[in-house]
């Protein structure tokens, strides 16, 4: 798992690539989100476009990141979810937890209307 961070319209975009699979990945993702919360940056879009696969431990990493933000009244949105990952969200019913959008624009816009 690799994370590239940038900002747009007051929203942090985390471009994730590689595999999301536990091991060292857990800390990397959670620490990134904790740092953002600490800096007062609580609107985060996670771009999964470069992710080849997620396993169930990786789902846990996403849930943990989601919870970290939620606890601080922040929000995590997902974008560019592949068919393979979408299928795991369906099977585990996590699609009802994660807000996922087709494009970065839509994800960013979704913060404005809240």
């Amino acid at each position, binding site marked *: 798992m690799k994370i590239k961070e940038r900002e747009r319209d007051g929203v942090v975009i985390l471009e994730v690539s590689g595999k999301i699979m536990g*091991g060292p*990945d857990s800390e990397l993702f959670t620490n990134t989100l904790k740092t953002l919360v600490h800096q007062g940056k609580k609107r985060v879009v996670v771009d999964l476009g470069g992710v080849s696969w997620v396993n169930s431990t990786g789902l*846990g990493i996403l*849930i943990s990141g989601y919870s970290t933000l939620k606890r601080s009244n922040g929000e995590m949105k997902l974008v560019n979810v592949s068919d*393979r990952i979408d299928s795991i969200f369906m099977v585990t*019913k996590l699609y009802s*937890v994660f807000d996922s959008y087709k494009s970065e624009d839509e994800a960013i816009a979704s913060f404005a209307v809240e």
Partner: protein
Amino acid sequence: MKIELSFPSSHMFLGIPDVVIQELGSELPFTQTELDELSTSVIEGCTNALEHGNKMVDEVPVRLEIEFDPTRIEITIFDQGEGFDFESIDFSQAPTDLMQERGRGIYIMHTYCDELSFFRQNGSFAVRMVKIPRSRAKDGDGGDADAIARED
């Protein structure tokens, strides 16, 4: 026909069973969705084997036997651990607490595969999963699939 694979018990190598299955499946009459389901299941099985079975000891290998023909792929994953009390678990239930961070691996394998079983053999613990293609006519590029289908 049979492919065998073994790799060290580290998350770093979980991409290897994935690419092997994707490559093998591209020569067999499976759809991309079916291959993704099998591949994800195998990654779950290997994750459990290296975490729970081999306790992340690099030197202890995770071992895969992949048996296949155009009508099925059957994969057995061996670790060197004690196993667990699988008879008492209902695989068909996902965690009801959606915010729970673990405990979805076996449920995913059970949902994605046509058969799932656990057993012990010669001091190893094993999970076996079977995937059967819904249609033997592969959408789009069935060239190689046809080639192997003619063999039997």
